[in-house]
């Protein structure tokens, strides 16, 4: 069979495009080299849906950011996405910062961001009492939101699958050829697939994928790391808005970002590196983030850190998102250089690719039976007492609490294992259900999660992975079974 489209990469951009594309009668395959969707840049970032104040007016970033921000409001209900509508403040601490803030104020208005305002010190401290009292002025960006990037990506993927997308995980593209007008995509496992067109949404690997078929790719990917602290959700309310420092020549700076589940993220720094997959934490990176963040708030409870992580942005040498059909190879579409505000823009990127770049309406018939609505995993602890009673009656396994920090039940985990994009690793379950995302970081529930995955997938417990391929947790049995 010949596909109409192969989409390479199951990050937030690839899955958003896939969902938009599945509104038409197309045969589409998505290939992802990792063993789950949303494993790299889409997973590990600040989780902000930016207002659109930051990109330069006239750029694709500015247009798609503002559009994307609006689309999240619609998708919140359609795709069951968590949104924290907490707004953001960009904070100035000097006369010079004040001037910069005013230019951002004008730029935000030019980009079409709604509700922006400049507030004086007094009003700023009223809005955010724990702000560093050295504040001189703030830019109020009320349309800024926070989402759960994992849930966004999963939602796009699940809805696309419900509408006919084929997803192949653990499938890494090794080579692309074009013969007689058709692309032949071969994988490291030796499979090969035929397709009319390719959408290259491989994040930090878009350059590598493009080089398989193009001689001169007009951009080079420059992976850029960012390190973060995660502060326990029990310390809520010390900061309520997303806080940006006033940007300097060095970049956007270190932010404080309240999360949808109550944690607070502190980060990121911004350091270029060659390896797109190096996500280690460094002492220097973390201490830089710590030092910088105290400029915004000098009472951050760093004694309540539950985790640190690193994300890698797929930045490029091109000074904007690079979303175009290849000049050399017809039918090969670049969706590259998607760094910040990539998550914010993702739904708008999808519409732009499908409506403008592909012009799907001209080539394909619109589906009449497109399933618009997607339902997320309904976690037991989020239900009303009435719904809990009914859910428990149907599934008594809801009475067995597995993760006590995040209050996740056995039935929640069973649902996560058996969903349309199954969670088959310990971290896969954590992404889907939040079991292990709390204070004890899985110390209490991990052994139960391993047993549940093994039971549901009829696997040996020693073959249950933590996350990456062959990242087994238990190595051997100590007792011989009779």
């Amino acid at each position: 069979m010949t596909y109409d489209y192969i989409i390479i990469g199951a990050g937030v951009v690839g899955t958003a495009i896939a969902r938009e594309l599945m509104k038409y009668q197309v045969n589409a395959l998505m290939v992802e080299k990792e063993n789950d969707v949303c494993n790299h840049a889409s997973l590990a970032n600040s989780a902000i849906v930016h207002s659109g104040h930051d990109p330069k007016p006239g750029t694709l970033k500015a247009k798609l950011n503002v559009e994307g921000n609006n689309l999240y409001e619609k998708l919140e209900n359609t795709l069951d996405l968590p949104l924290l509508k907490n707004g953001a403040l960009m904070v100035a601490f000097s006369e010079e910062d004040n001037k910069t803030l005013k230019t951002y104020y004008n730029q935000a208005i030019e980009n079409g961001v709604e509700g922006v305002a400049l507030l004086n010190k007094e009003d700023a401290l009223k809005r955010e009492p724990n702000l560093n009292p050295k504040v001189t002025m703030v830019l109020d960006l009320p349309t800024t939101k926070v989402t759960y990037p994992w849930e966004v990506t999963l939602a796009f993927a699940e809805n696309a699958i419900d509408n006919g997308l084929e997803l192949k995980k653990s499938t890494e593209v090794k080579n692309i050829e074009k013969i007689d007008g058709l692309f032949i995509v071969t994988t490291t496992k030796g499979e090969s697939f035929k397709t009319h067109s390719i959408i290259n949404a491989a994040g930090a690997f878009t350059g590598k994928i493009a080089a398989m078929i193009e001689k001169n790719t007009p951009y080079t990917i420059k992976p850029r790391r960012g390190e973060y602290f995660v502060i326990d959700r029990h310390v809520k309310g010390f900061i309520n808005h997303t806080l940006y420092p006033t940007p300097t020549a060095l970049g956007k700076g270190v932010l404080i970002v309240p999360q949808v589940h109550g944690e607070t993220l502190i980060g990121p720094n911004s350091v270029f590196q060659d390896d797109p997959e190096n996500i280690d934490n460094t002492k220097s990176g973390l201490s830089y983030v710590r030092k910088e963040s105290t400029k915004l708030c000098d009472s951050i409870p760093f004694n309540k850190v539950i985790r640190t992580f690193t994300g890698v942005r797929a930045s490029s040498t091109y000074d904007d998102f690079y979303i175009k059909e290849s000049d050399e190879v017809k039918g090969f579409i670049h969706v590259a250089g998607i760094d910040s505000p990539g998550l914010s823009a993702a739904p708008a990127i999808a519409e732009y690719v499908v409506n403008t770049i592909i012009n799907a309406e001209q080539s394909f018939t619109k589906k009449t039976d497109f399933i618009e609505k997607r339902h997320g995993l309904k976690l037991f602890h989020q239900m009303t007492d009435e719904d809990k009673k009914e859910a428990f009656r149907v599934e008594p396994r809801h009475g067995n609490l597995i993760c006590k920090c995040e209050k996740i039940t056995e039935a929640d985990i069973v649902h996560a294992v058996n969903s349309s994009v199954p969670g088959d690793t310990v971290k896969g379950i954590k992404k889907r259900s939040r079991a292990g995302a709390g204070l004890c970081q899985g110390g209490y529930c991990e052994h139960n999660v391993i047993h549940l995955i093994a039971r549901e997938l009829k696997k040996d417990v020693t073959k249950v992975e933590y996350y990456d391929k062959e990242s087994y947790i238990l190595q051997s049995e100590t007792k011989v079974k009779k």
Partner: protein
Amino acid sequence: MNYDLIIIGGGAAGVAALKSAYDPNLKILLVERENRLGGILKQCIHNGFGVHHYKEELTGPEYAVRGIDAIKTLDVDILTDTTVIDVEKTNGTFTVRMSNTTDGDHLRTSKAVILSSGCYERTRGAIQLPGDRPSGIMPAGSAQRYLNMEGYLVGKKIFILGSGDIGLIMARRMTLEGAKVLGVAEIMPYSNGLTRNIVQCLHDFDIPLYLSHTISDIRGKSRLEGITISEVDETFQTIEGTEKHFDVDTLLLSVGLIPDINMFESLSFETSRKTNGAIVDQTYQTSVEGLFACGNALHVHDLVDFVTEESEKAGKSAKAFIMENHKKNKKLIDIEASDNIGYVLPQKLDMDQPFDEVELSFRATMKGDKGVFVIHQGDQEILTKKARFVMPAEMEKISLKKDLIDTTEPITIRFEVTQ
């Protein structure tokens, strides 16, 4: 009201509290999240328990059974496989939300609650270890559970960070099970474990202990491949040029235990930044009237014998609270840790309670061969006690007579090293 008393947690603390709180006229419920009582003792299959309390050396499971045997004939309700999700208090009544597969998510009310929910292990994230994040890095207690309760070995070449007792015990246990333990690193210049464990678990098996060392790098893509340790200076910063590499598939963390009191989303009580547990008076009552705390859920103990002793007192106080018409006006005096003392328990003394003397439990923050503990009230030195071989890993105790306390000023305790 469903119950007079609900006890949360059926480990050594909950079982001891139940025993002393029991009265034929009281309705008591004990809630345990696992399928049987005993708590963490169930997985501590080594010996060394009970020397103080039972005057004989027992394994963890044996110690647990002693306590359980003492309560099994009592007319109380015990719910296993039941997890407490939240506790609220309104108009003098506690509402405990709990969950199990028989009744689902449901509520039970009581006049008093004892929090004996134990502790959890500090994680890699909390101490912000640098490096990659592959599988094969876990708290030592988790590895102990996998090995002793479930029969799975988590790795073959092991390194251990932190010389807390669980880390030391696991160094021996993994060795006996055929794994190779390459070393234990401790950031402090002294071990944080009991001396007997250093000798019996490390020295006897030729496992090196690297004092003043910590992990400076972790490598591995999917499974752990190796770690680097570095020496640290007095400010705990790693010293360049002192790196040592070890090829290991497993890193066990024994870097501290934290009282597990996070089931409370609705009820808040005063907690101590030093113990991470509740602040209590000498009756083990927290800042919430009728809420008591004991065992590792209050502060982390070195010996289970002391958990039992403390929890019996807490159980007795809870019973007195329920049976006597309790006066609401308290006369609280603060008890504070001063120079060279990490923390002291209780943190409050209720002078309105009937008592002759109070036992203060505390830990030094330094190692000292010879010295003196000094208890002050205001400018007044009210008690001193000579001490030998003081170390943070071993809890100290002093009894303080009520008639020594003259004023309402805070009581402070400090440690002075003598030559």
